[in-house]
Every structure is written in C-alpha cells, then in structure tokens.
C-alpha cells in the first residue's frame, strides 16, 4: 500500500498496537494497529457496526480495551484514566450530539476551555480556592472556537432551540476550546446538509494547516476524499485497507464490505 506521507523517523502522535475491544462474544475491535503522524488528517470508513466508534472509545479510554497498547507521543497510556486525557490534550466529539441541556451554547463550549485552563494551572501557579471554584471569568479559547465554527449569535441559545447541524457545530467548538493536539471526530457532519459539510471540511483543513492531528470517522466519501491525507477502512473490527483516500475507496475489499451489508439492494 502507499507509504505514509511523513517519514517514519518522526514519533507518531498516536500509535495503536494490536488494539482489541470485545463485548462478550462480539469482537467490536479486533487487533487494530495504526500510527497517526503529526499534523495530518486521518479518516476511518467502514459500514455501520464495523467498530469505528468503539475504536474511538478505546483511544479516549472511555471504553475498556481487551488487549493491545496505546501510545501518545511514544508514551503508553493504556492505564491512564479517561479524565487525564484532557491533560494530554486529546479530545473527541461523539456520534450522537452530547450537549448539556441546561447550559447555553457559550457554557457548553466553556466546558472544553475549562479542561484547558485546568491543565495549564497544573503546570503553573496554584490558583486560590475561589478561582478554582469559579473558574476564569472568560477564556479566549471560547470566543475563538465560536468564531471558527460560525456560531456567533447563538451564544445564549440552549441546545433544544437549535437545529441538529448547529448542535453538532457546538460539539466541535467545545472540542476546539480545549486546544487539542489530537482531535477525534465521530461522524461530525451527520445530519448536516452539503454546504454545512463543506464548511466543516474547510475548518478541519484549516486546523490541519495549524498542525492539529485529526482522526475523522465519516460516511460521506466525497468529504473523506476532500479532507483526509490517509484513510483506514474497517470491517468487522479489523482493518481491511489503508492508504491514499482514493485508492482505499476504490479497493475491492472496501466496496465488498459496503455492498455485503445488505445495502446493495438496488445495485
């Protein structure tokens, strides 16, 4: 398959070695190895149920793994609790929108910035108990995330008052407010129309220019072709292909995986 676009001497931001997640007899993820090099956008495609979300869950330590190794910047972290990943500045969005219903858009995004300020504080001066309780009055990361996801004007809206696509943008903004080094996106444009998707794709490419490493799960092939540097294809918990995006989507095994999933009715 085609070579990774970056020299192998660089330490990968994320490396998975033989990662497996089994739920009883269900092998949701079964022996996946991958390396994500800094500053690139990686994609994962695969039919529903192929284990993409479970893989992201395992990488973010929210889902218990059955075996394998996880390395961030070359250091293994498979025993680190999920709440510590924010300190490594690994963050994710979820396949289903998960905003807090009682908080408005600004406060929902602020939660991401809170995680950042905590890890920054850990490095420096000890804040007073009052500062720790209240948090900083305003974080620059929030305004920036709102601007980048084009949510200006929505700051005081509650999640239930917005369309699904807009809610998804808030999810992305919350992740960005954390100032991540590795961003994992689980179907971030599901429920968006074409122009919104193009916008998100543009945003992800801008973030790539700034050096952010990303792992993107998406069904929209055109978006994957436009956005990703490198694509992994999964089926039944295993990698069935990887490489340049256009090669992977043309790969017979990948096509077979999709058609095999009883979607080929009108083929």
């Amino acid at each position, binding site marked *: 398959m085609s070579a990774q676009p970056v020299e192998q001497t660089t330490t990968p931001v994320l490396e998975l070695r033989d990662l497996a997640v089994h739920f009883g007899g269900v092998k949701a993820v079964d022996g996946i190895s991958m390396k994500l090099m800094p500053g690139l956008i990686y994609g994962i495609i695969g039919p529903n149920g192929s284990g993409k979300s479970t893989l992201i869950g395992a990488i973010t330590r929210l889902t218990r793994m059955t075996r394998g190794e996880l390395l961030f910047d070359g250091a293994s972290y498979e025993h680190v609790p999920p709440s510590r990943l924010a300190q490594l500045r690994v963050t994710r969005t979820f396949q289903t929108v998960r905003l*807090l219903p009682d908080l408005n858009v600004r406060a929902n995004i602020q939660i991401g910035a809170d995680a950042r300020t905590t890890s920054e504080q850990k490095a420096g001066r000890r804040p007073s108990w009052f500062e720790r309780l209240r948090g900083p009055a305003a974080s620059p990361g929030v305004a920036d995330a709102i601007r980048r996801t084009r949510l200006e004007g929505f700051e005081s809206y509650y999640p239930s008052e917005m369309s699904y696509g807009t809610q998804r943008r808030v999810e992305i903004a919350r992740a960005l407010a954390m100032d991540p080094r590795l961003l994992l996106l689980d179907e971030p444009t599901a429920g968006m129309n074409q122009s919104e998707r193009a916008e998100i794709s543009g945003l992800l490419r801008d973030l790539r220019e700034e050096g952010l490493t990303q792992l993107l799960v998406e069904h929209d*092939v055109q978006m994957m072709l436009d956005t990703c540097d490198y694509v992994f294809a999964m089926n039944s918990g295993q990698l069935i292909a990887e490489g340049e995006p256009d090669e992977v989507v043309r790969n017979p095994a990948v096509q077979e995986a999709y058609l095999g999933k009883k979607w080929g009715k009108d083929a």
Partner: protein
Amino acid sequence: MMSFYDSHLVLFQATFTGLILALSIQVPLRMGVFSFAGAGSYGIGAYLAAILVIKQDASAFVAIGAAMLATAVIGLLLGLLIFKLNGLYLAMATVAFDLIIGVIAINGGKTTGGSTGLYGVITDFTMSQLFTITLIALVLVALSEVGRTGRRVDAVRDDPELASSMGISLRRYRLTAFVVSGALGGLAGSMNVLVRSAIGPLDIGFGLIVLGLTMIVVGGSRSWKGAVIGAVIFTWLPDVLTAIGAWQELVYGIVVALAAVFLPRGIYGVLVDLNKGLQRRSRERHDPPPAAAEEAAGDVDPTTGDVRELALNEEAVP
C-alpha cells in the same frame, strides 16, 4: 403580647435547619449521586452535638464544628465504600445507612439515651447565629452552582462519560458529594438539637428522608433556590393545615403528588422555564437567529455521497 416572630420562632428555626437538611440531599442529587446519607448524618450530628454539650460542656460552636467534621469524615468513608454503586442500589445503601444510625440511637444505652433520647442540651446558641451559619452554608452551596464548578456538576450529572472526556474526575466529584452531604447533614442536625435542646430516635427516622426529599422535589432539585422554596413550604404548610384537622395528611399528600406529577423540576423549574421563554421571545424580537444555520434542519440527507453510491459508480472517484 407576642409578636408573630416570637410566637412562630420554632417554625423559623425549623425552616433554617430544614433547609440545610434539604441541601444535604440536594447537593449529591445535583451531582447525579442518589444518596440520602444526609439524613443519617443529621442524626449523627444531632447526637454528637448533644453528647458534647451534656457530657463535655462544649460550647455551641465546638459542638457544631465537631459534628460537621465527624459527619464529613463518615461521609468520605461511606463514599469510598459505596460510590461505585449506581442509581437505585446507591439509594438503598444510603437509606440502610440512615436506618442503622436510627438503630444505634435506640440501642446506644446511656450514651444516646435509648428510646427517650437526650435532653437538656442547653447552650447560648442564638437565633442570629443560626441564621448566619445557614446563610454562609447557603452561599457556599450557591457558589457551587455557578461558573466552572456549576458547569462541571451539570456535566457529571447529565453525562458522566462526556464529563470524563472533558477532564473531570468523576471519582473526585462523587466523593466530594458524599463529604459535602455529610457535613451539611451534620450541620443541620447539630444546629437543630441546639435550638430544640433535645433529640430522640423519632426525630431522626425515615421521616427525615421524606421531608428533605419532598422539599427539593417540590421546590426544585437543581438549585439552592428550589431548596429554599421547598423548606419554606414544608415547614409552614403543616402549620397552616392544622386548621383543617383530620384532613391535614390527605391534603399534604395530594400537594406532594400533584407537584411530582405536574412539576417534574419543581416550582423553581417552572420559574426557570418561564424565564427562558421570555428570554427567547425578546431575543427573537431584537435579533432573529443568525441566518447561517437554522434552516438546515429541513434538507438533511445523511446518506448523500456515501461509499455505497460510490461502489455503484466508479466515476465518482477522481
């Protein structure tokens, strides 16, 4: 001639201690921890303060401080023991804890005064001290509802998985819930025994859980303001209802049932929703939603451009 205040002094006192009891159950609930251990801590705090005053001649502040410290530590130990339990199982374990405290009170021999309890708990604790301490506790709880802590408490309750992926340690928040609940319960119990000068097993039974829970369910479980509303209603309502004699319990029961059915977020929740509605209307009048996004809802087609299509259409690949 007695003023209204003097003749209702007991009710004013009960409002404050009832409020702190309600907070001892509300704080953990707000963090998604279904613990009623606050009621047990109330019993421990009441008995401990009584014993310290009677046997050691302790001052009111020493008695309250010692009671809070003890119940906070017991809360921590209880938390370490059971914080992994969830929902109903956790609730059951904490109710059991409360019942055990009641059993100890009855069977504690001379130390707890058995079924008669302890009396003659006399200190110079004043109404204004009771008021001041209640206010301080209320302000501290209110602070935990705003800013970063408020957001994190919301996250821990509504979506624990999201919370941990946002760098929040669930374990730490849950243990804190037990400690704060313990300290507040101990505070309520110790202040109550100091103003009433007596405590018995009947004062710390299952009824405390019901009282505290009723206050926050009807008043509103998400904010200290709901606890205040509930504490006022359920301290004063029984007094008002004595006028109707035998029907008292029935009316009381109906009020609670109606509130639970029609006001799922309590009276305070209704006020919040009204306010949100007003905000939305004024916002729509002054600045309509930004054009960029709100329209999309209609023309969503999540399957467009799927690999599926591609499989049927080779040309789609550049």
